[in-house]
């Protein structure tokens, strides 16, 4: 088991996370607020209740979860897809790591995020 390899992938991904912190947190917060304001102004005032809960209690958790899920998936897949796209994946392919260790490194980092 190449633990150094798993740790290297994990650390590399976490450093990418730190680098992209603003785009992964601030940007979704802004889009969510915009959604809330625009939808609120357009249709929010006309809807009193959805399935027994107030409009605010319905829409806010929904929007937050939507952004959370999209971001976590795109962030995790980006780390795997981008090296393939730019070609740096050669290093991962030529390294003495098994498929399992690669997955462990990437998924471990994605889960931590």
């Amino acid at each position, binding site marked *: 088991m*190449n633990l*150094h*390899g798993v*740790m*290297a*992938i994990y*650390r*590399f991904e976490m*450093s*990418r996370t730190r*680098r992209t912190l603003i785009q992964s947190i601030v940007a979704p917060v802004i889009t969510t607020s915009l959604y809330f304001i625009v939808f609120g102004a357009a249709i929010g005032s006309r809807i009193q209740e959805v399935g027994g809960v107030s409009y605010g209690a319905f829409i806010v958790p929904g929007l937050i979860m939507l952004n959370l899920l999209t971001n976590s998936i795109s962030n995790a897949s980006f780390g795997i897809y981008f*090296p393939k796209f*730019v*070609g*740096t994946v*050669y*290093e*991962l*392919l*030529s*390294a*003495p*790591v098994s498929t399992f260790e690669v997955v462990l490194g990437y998924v471990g980092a994605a889960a931590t995020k």
Partner: protein
Amino acid sequence: MNAVDEPILRVSNLSKTYAGGFEALKDISLEIQKGEIIALLGPNGAGKTTLISAICGIVRPSSGQVTVAGFDIARDYRKTRALIGLVPQELTTDSFESVYNTVAFSRGLFGRAPNHAHLEKVLKDLSLWDKKDNKIITLSGGMKRRLLIAKALAHEPRVLFLDEPTAGVDVSLRKDMWKIVKELRESGVTIILTTHYIEEAEEIADRVGVINNGEIILIESKTALMQKLGKKQLILDLSESLSALPAAINRHDLAISDDGMKLTYTFDTQSERTGITALLDDLKAAGIQFRDLNTTQSSLEEIFVNLVDESSEKNSAAVNGAAAE
């Protein structure tokens, strides 16, 4: 066979056919000894990169076997890959990461414990230490090339592949790079490089291999090639046409052109007696007059181009033959 003369790299009957049916490598066999520098020459698309990729585990071979230091690359891939460092042809880097982090990543990926001192040494050797905290995107092309070498050396490999390391690198940097290669060899690293610069292959390599159309046409020590290089031809333009060579000058092993106007004498510049004086004396004695004389020398480049052309012709002839049948 004991461990000492076990070649560091042995390729036997390696073939690679891509999914589209393109045969990139045809039955390649090759042995490389520890501490050698071997240069692979070949035109674009000859299969050099595929060969390297197959050994490093990036491309899956269709058939054949490769062993590194006695370990099979498929069965013991952890051992073989940890021994190998690869500098790719393309400048592919993680643009937004810092120099130091990306080198540290490479070391970890190849299963070595973090070692700050070693990374510092590698980066200093490649004059990248003052750039260690810079993002890769801010580096120049030559620096990126050196960074790729640093990444390949981060895990202290025993075999280093350099895939066209001097492509797009300026003269002084190229010289620095060859200096690094020589130092690495002194520390016992085996180096396999591909290049288009034939003179450099000649300067730095112990052996030179020529690949074309996925086949190794020739693999010879540099000294053997230098002897081929040492051949020179003396061409004499005669004033009058000769139908046959007079017996008196036959001993010189001359070639006569079809129209009888040209005599060609091939000699070895490395030997002490080239025999030119004797030849000219005999020509005078036989009463043969000549108008002009010139000498030509075959360079390694010519040898290389001839080899590649020959093998291409043979291939197309084989294809035509197969089509005719």
